[in-house]
């Protein structure tokens, strides 16, 4: 156990954690659209959609042409006009004639934006199209054109005139893809390093480097503990019992960290501190099993007997711990990523930009766990020497 006293891995731990905690805050979130208003619109009126983006660069010279589309199903519809207000704000004017409302199968429109610097980003189902009452198709067509002539101002009429003529042609040949426009983009991906923009998660995606490794550390310490429990049963050296016991103490520290950080994260994303998720309950049971280990040790006064019973209990506890943390949550649906699969390592859950911080974070936190463990072990050994 000479490595307990070595310094290099503690320096590595500090360097990695410093890199993760400081470095990860310098990486921005990818551009995304956070708000679109109005959230509903009807046919035959020109709507001005206020689009609020996050971390976008609409005004940046490198951004080139800023494009917007309304997307319904797989069809892209072009807006009438786009006005850029600042880097994160734009106004988009958009109209749909009631002539074509029946050709729109998916009433929830995504708002899609693209420019050369930010790539393509969208707000899914940002605004909903509300169809008006439709009579027979012929009477509706007549009504709509008359309506446009009468009530909407001349500016709009001029804007829509071309469309209306097109519309009647399209209407007669029945293809109904009037506003659908070609989509030509230079880059689909943003041109800088950034963490993925996920609705609901937003900046909390950075918790991947803090909450998730807590459980990695706990698992590593628990495995360390069981190795020494087995070695104690095989060889009967009381030192091994100290190692196993202190590893569980350190594991509980990180388990509680994991539960508390998870609770705060859940409150602000899923809406509650504790939801009935198999992974949450499994983790809670896992931590409680190791509380029981500490209680079990406290209840036996004879040293050798205590060490033996604790070692055997530890082996059973690990089986239950692995079952509740790794197996049961994967068999059922969970709010955690990767339900029914392997979370955190799949390409959908972990972007490359997250990986360059996530793996160092896991190593760094595990080293911190073992650092804490080494202090606990040395402390306990001195205490035993002085018979405290």
């Amino acid at each position, binding site marked *: 156990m000479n490595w307990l006293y070595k310094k290099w891995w503690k320096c590595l731990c500090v360097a990695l954690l410093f890199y993760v905690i400081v470095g990860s805050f310098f990486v921005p979130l990818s551009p995304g659209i956070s708000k679109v208003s109005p959230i509903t619109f009807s046919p035959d009126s020109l709507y001005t959609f206020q689009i609020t983006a996050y971390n976008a660069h609409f005004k940046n010279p490198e951004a080139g042409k800023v494009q917007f589309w309304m997307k319904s199903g797989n069809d892209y519809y072009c807006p009438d006009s786009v006005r850029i207000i600042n880097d994160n704000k734009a106004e988009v004017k958009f109209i749909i004639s009631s002539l074509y409302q029946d050709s729109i199968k998916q009433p929830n429109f995504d708002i899609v934006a693209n420019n050369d610097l930010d790539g393509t980003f969208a707000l899914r189902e940002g605004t909903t199209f509300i169809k008006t009452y439709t009579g027979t198709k012929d009477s509706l067509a007549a009504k709509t054109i008359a309506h446009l002539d009468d009530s909407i101002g001349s500016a709009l009429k001029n804007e829509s005139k071309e469309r209306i003529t097109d519309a009647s042609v399209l209407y007669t040949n029945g293809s109904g893809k009037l506003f659908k426009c070609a989509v030509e983009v230079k880059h689909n991906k943003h041109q800088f390093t950034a963490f993925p923009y996920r609705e609901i998660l937003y*900046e909390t995606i950075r*918790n991947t480097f*803090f*909450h998730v490794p807590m459980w990695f550390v706990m698992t590593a310490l628990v495995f360390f503990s069981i190795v020494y429990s087995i070695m104690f049963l095989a060889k009967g050296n009381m030192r091994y019992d100290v190692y196993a016991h202190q590893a569980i103490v350190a594991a509980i520290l990180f388990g509680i960290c994991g539960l*508390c950080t998870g609770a705060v994260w859940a409150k602000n*994303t899923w809406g509650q501190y504790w939801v009935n998720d198999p992974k949450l309950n499994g983790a809670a049971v896992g931590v409680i099993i190791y509380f029981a280990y500490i209680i079990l040790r406290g209840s036996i006064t004879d040293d050798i007997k205590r060490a033996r019973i604790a070692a055997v209990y530890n082996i059973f506890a690990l089986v239950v711990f692995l079952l509740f943390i790794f197996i049961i949550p994967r068999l059922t649906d969970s709010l955690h990523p990767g339900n029914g699969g392997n979370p955190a390592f799949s390409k959908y859950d972990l972007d490359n930009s997250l990986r360059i911080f996530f793996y160092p974070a896991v190593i760094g936190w595990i080293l911190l766990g073992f650092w*804490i463990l080494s202090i606990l072990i040395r402390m306990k050994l001195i205490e035993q020497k002085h018979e405290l």
Partner: protein
Amino acid sequence: MKKYFLLIIPILANLILCAQGDISADNNDMMRSNHKIYVVAAVLAIILTAIFIFLFSIERRLKKLENSPSANR
């Protein structure tokens, strides 16, 4: 053993305090402002708190060792 259970109480007490916030969901606005960046800050604060509690508990054990008659021989 007792001191480890004592160690847990302050962390859990924090949770009980927050649980009262259910009546006023709007008070949570600060946490959700700026695209929820304060949630990350809170998570880091919790981890730091746990490490500090660990340090204090270690120091208490160390003090006991320093004051023990066998250590002063």
